[in-house]
């Protein structure tokens, strides 16, 4: 009796697991399938699960006849600068929060966290006007400055947590050996905190890659679009005229791929972020 129950339990578990996997990955797999189909196959009824042949013709078409590669390149450049820039600003700040004593430190930390909860949409009107004055509108540097800023709260909090876990005794030993504060940060704290920095890197990369509101508002030159805005533009353009669902699927897959690879490969870091920030006493 007991044995039969446990077999049933295993069956229920795996059944549910399969269903969940299908529910969450199915939409993406369907997109991949569409991206390989020919135009006739797209509109075939009943729809076929898989395309007849896996030809890369659609991909070749999108790579050579659309701006998608340019968008991907733009996204890549913006993301690299935003993520590196963010670390240059947040590592020193997290160091100060971790190693220094000053008034209102905790209040200050929470104040920073508040920014995290405020939609970037709210600051866009004033920023738009400043950027017009400064000539930063319609430029990647302007965009990158905003990206760096909106990721600050999250990065500072996370890095501070990682720096805190580096024992103070190591700092003291370094000071006795004649290290300056800067050398202590560079030679002692940073090497030990590599996993923490990697975590911030992963998260900021995914967020910068997917950022939509900011580029949508601050760019109107199509040549500068990142993939998020570019793909929306691409999708809206196709409803106006020719039917190009298979190309849209290709573009989606190209936009999704980096995110999916990062998430699957570096899941450990992502889970750590989600649990560390929220449940810490």
């Amino acid at each position, binding site marked *: 009796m007991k044995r039969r129950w446990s077999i049933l339990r295993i069956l229920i578990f795996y059944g549910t697991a399969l269903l969940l996997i299908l529910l*969450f990955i199915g939409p993406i797999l369907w997109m991949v399938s569409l991206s390989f189909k020919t135009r006739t196959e797209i509109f075939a*009824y009943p729809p076929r699960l898989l395309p007849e042949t896996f030809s890369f013709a659609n991909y070749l078409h999108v790579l050579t006849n659309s701006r998608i590669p340019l968008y991907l390149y733009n996204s890549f450049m913006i993301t690299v600068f935003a993520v590196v820039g963010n670390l240059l600003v947040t590592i020193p700040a997290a160091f100060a929060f971790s190693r*220094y004593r000053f008034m209102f430190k905790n209040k200050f930390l929470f104040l920073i966290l*508040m*920014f995290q909860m405020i939609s970037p949409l709210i*600051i866009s009107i*004033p920023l738009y006007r400043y950027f017009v004055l400064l000539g930063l509108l319609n430029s990647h540097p302007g965009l990158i400055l905003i990206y760096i800023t909106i990721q600050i709260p999250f990065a500072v909090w996370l890095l501070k947590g990682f720096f805190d876990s580096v024992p103070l005794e190591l700092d003291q030993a370094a000071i006795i050996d004649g290290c300056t504060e800067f050398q202590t940060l560079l030679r002692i704290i940073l090497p030990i905190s590599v996993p923490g920095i990697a975590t911030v890197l992963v998260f900021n990369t995914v967020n910068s890659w997917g950022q939509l509101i900011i580029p949508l508002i601050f760019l109107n030159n199509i040549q500068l679009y990142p993939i998020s805005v570019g*793909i929306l533009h691409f999708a809206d353009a196709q409803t106006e005229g020719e039917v190009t669902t298979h190309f849209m699927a290709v573009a989606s897959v190209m936009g999704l791929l980096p995110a999916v690879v990062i998430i699957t490969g570096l899941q450990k870091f992502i889970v750590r972020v*989600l649990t560390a920030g929220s449940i810490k006493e």
Partner: protein
Amino acid sequence: MKKRSSAYYTHPLKWLLPMLAMLILFYLYPMIDVIRYSFTNVSILRPTYRYTLDSYLKIMQDPEILHTFYVTFTFVFSNVMAQLVIGMLLALFLNFGIRNRYPMTIAVRTVVLIAWMIPGVLVGIVWRLLLSSSNFGIINYLLEVIGFKRIEFLVQPPVALLSVIIVNIWRGTAFTMIMEYAGLQRIPEQLYEAAKVDGAGAITQFFRITLPLMKPILFINLVLITIYTFNTFDMILALTGGGPARATEVLTLSAYTQMFKFFSMGTGAAISVILLVINMSMAYVYYRFILSDTKGVE
């Protein structure tokens, strides 16, 4: 927490300066400025402006604004409730799988996380294709297979709102799942063993042990997902663009439309201020709770 008697450096300002400069220039100052702008008739199209209450009056007289609030509330409330319940079920499922070392558990966690991490704009576009009433709209085909009629998901206003809500649940639940899963893992196994000895079944255990111990996490989770859902913008823009007939236009989309489609920056600023007030109140609730919670721990 132990006092750090050995936190020895002073004068942290030079380390904080770059961050402070960025936050003040690109966040704090614009945030204060948007309040000022909301009392003007500022526009992208001309450089000068004057002070007026018109924007607020215009919002209050706009018959559509109530509808936008209704859409926003429906969207946020149903999402938060569904994500809490489904997230909890998923967390229990993961917890069960991990404890029994079933190998497929991590795969489930990964796919749910993928849905959460892919850019919102892509979620919108992918689902636009899935929910389409053309032949490639697989959802409609599946409905037919199991004997239902085809549905024009994104055309009929109430159905469109429901679709947007469901897609956002699909996308957002991972966050709750992971948070609650982490919470479940922190409940000592002995408590359940003791309960078992006392003859408590799985359901009693859940309501008497799991739920009470998870209360603080559930509350933080509730506040955070309310904020996230409230600020959702990219997915809806890509999926429906706020349509049909503004049926899925949440407050953030409204602000965007006013500002950058109608170039009515004053009205946009006024809606931004409303957004700001709502965001700040939720952040304050979060802050107060964390504060009282940490005091309890120390």
